[in-house]
């Protein structure tokens, strides 16, 4: 970086994240090439799904495998309401999100009391149950799914017309605007008492309880919010493809969601964005063929887990440089010498 002020600007990782989101949005929305519109839509949608999982796992520490199921409930609700029952898209969306939240409360009620492994299994069971029910329901089109031209239409913004039709630059822009809104919202949670409570519960539930933080209450809130985010992702996905089928919401989707969050960096707000870019980049853009793409992505994940378990954003460059020095003693005899540590400037949990 050339000038000092540019360097200072990019010292804050949050700013880098925002710049990246804007650059991605502008790039994919204006390029006009159908291939890139496809890639851009997928990046935004997977970043949304990843953000949903990142909120509940990265922030709240709950390894929930139900997120894809939430996406399915929302996507199918919109599909059935519009294609089968003739609702307008904009009327169907709020109802679909409300139904998803309701469903997440049911899932949360049964699963959030369980710890670790059992929570993961219980939420996975719910996700698979949703797919099972969908693929055997006539209303949901069984395994073929529902074809539907989700007609979002055009929004007029004064003199500007915003065409939201699927597979246009306008749709890509819509997807990124929703992604940005979700990221901003997660940022707000990060800085709030609710965010601190979720962090505390993730780090040490016993200590949190001793400080008056009620586990079930905050986890349920986190679960519901993550369900809303997953719902937005699910609806966008179905809208983009103009089609919805149980195949989108099976185990591969669950695994991809986990993988891209791990890749980008668990608990980093912009981690899922980076994860989605890399995931879509490798599996779609490189066009290394379906299985090979997954293979390359898998190999990358293995390397990452081995060498940078906190994900790409979790790589601490300063610490890498300090590696050579011996680790500091943990059990000093002396009263601990004051280390010169700069005072905090901003107080987010993580960028």
């Amino acid at each position, binding site marked *: 970086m050339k000038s000092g002020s540019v360097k200072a600007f990019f010292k804050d990782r949050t700013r880098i994240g925002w710049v990246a989101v804007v650059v991605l949005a502008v790039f994919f929305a204006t390029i006009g090439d159908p291939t890139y519109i496809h890639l851009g839509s997928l990046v935004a949608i997977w970043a949304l799904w990843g953000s949903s999982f990142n909120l509940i796992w990265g922030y709240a520490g709950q390894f929930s495998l139900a997120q894809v199921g939430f996406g399915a409930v929302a996507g199918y609700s919109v599909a059935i309401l519009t294609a089968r029952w003739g609702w307008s898209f904009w009327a169907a969306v709020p109802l679909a999100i409300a139904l998803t939240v309701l469903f997440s409360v049911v899932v949360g009620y049964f699963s959030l009391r369980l710890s670790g492994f059992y929570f993961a299994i219980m939420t996975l069971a719910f996700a698979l149950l949703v797919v099972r029910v969908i693929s055997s329901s006539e209303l949901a089109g069984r395994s073929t799914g529902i074809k539907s031209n989700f007609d979002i239409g055009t929004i007029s913004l004064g003199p500007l017309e915003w065409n939201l039709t699927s597979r246009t630059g306008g749709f890509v822009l819509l997807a990124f605007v929703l992604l940005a809104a979700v990221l901003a*919202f997660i940022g*707000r*949670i990060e*800085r*709030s*008492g*609710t*965010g*601190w*409570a979720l*962090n*505390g519960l993730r*780090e*040490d539930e*016993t*200590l*949190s*309880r*001793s*400080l*008056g*933080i*009620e*586990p079930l*209450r*905050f986890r349920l*809130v986190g679960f519901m*919010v993550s369900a809303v985010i997953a719902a937005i992702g699910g609806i966008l996905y179905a809208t983009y493809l103009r089609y919805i089928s149980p195949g989108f919401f099976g185990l591969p989707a669950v695994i991809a969601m986990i993988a891209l969050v791990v890749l980008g960096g668990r608990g980093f707000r912009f981690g899922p964005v980076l994860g989605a870019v890399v995931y879509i980049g490798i599996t779609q853009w490189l066009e290394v063929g379906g299985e090979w793409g997954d293979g390359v992505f898998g190999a990358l994940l293995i390397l990452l887990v081995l060498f940078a378990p906190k994900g790409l954003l979790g790589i601490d460059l300063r610490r890498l440089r300090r590696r050579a020095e011996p680790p*500091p*003693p*943990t*059990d*000093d*005899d*002396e*009263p*601990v010498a*004051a*280390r*010169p*540590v*700069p*005072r*905090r400037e901003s*107080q987010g*949990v993580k960028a």
Partner: protein
Amino acid sequence: MTAEVAPGEVLLECTDLVRRFGGVAAVDGVGFGLRAGEVSALIGPNGAGKTTVFNLLSGFLAVTSGSITWRGRDITSAKATARAGSGLVRTFQQPRVFAALTVHQNLVTATHAVVPSRVSADLLGLPGARRRARQRQGFADELLDRFDLAVHAEVKAGDLPYGLRKRLGLVLGVAASPRVLLMDEPAAGLNDAEVELLKQDLATIRGSGVTICIVEHHMGLIMSVSDRVMVMESGRMIADGTPAEIANDERVVAAYLGQGATA
């Protein structure tokens, strides 16, 4: 914070506490009260049941029988979080901190009881949420200064040396704004200089109107800071009196002090 408590009022009282693990009664008929403003100590040999008493009082374990009242109200089956929220706070024998968070973030998290989160306001970004966020920051900054932790503010709690982690664990308890603070072995593993520092901290905490009950093996510390000492052995209370009375109690000397407790 504790202004409305009359000095000498019995804040916390337990009667006939029993807690069994399988067939073994770890706590077997213990009863006592903690008076506002007092510093009391609970001592006894390893396995006497001291930590179990704290677990019962703070709601981390359910009683087998017996009752607990908090400012006259029965809390025997109240949730741990509710007890902490009402000012009955405990710390842990093994230092517990939020390892991945910085010292400052640890304190902000711990202010939950003082500045409760309103989930809906937080999610909607209402002005109250921002005000409360500022209050939390202010409170955390104050604690950093009061307990000389400011220079470590940006260090990850998990990277702190043992003594500081222990100290932070104690300050987290203070951050929860207790009326009564139950401390489980705050001096365990500390060197002499750190114990001196702990004495100052105890004076600071007491000075702010907090009633203190300490479980400790460090007799030097106990004898110098306590108004009252209770002694447990095998789940039972065998003595209760001033430090001087306890030091001269034959049963206590036989059961505990005689067998090489840290003087």
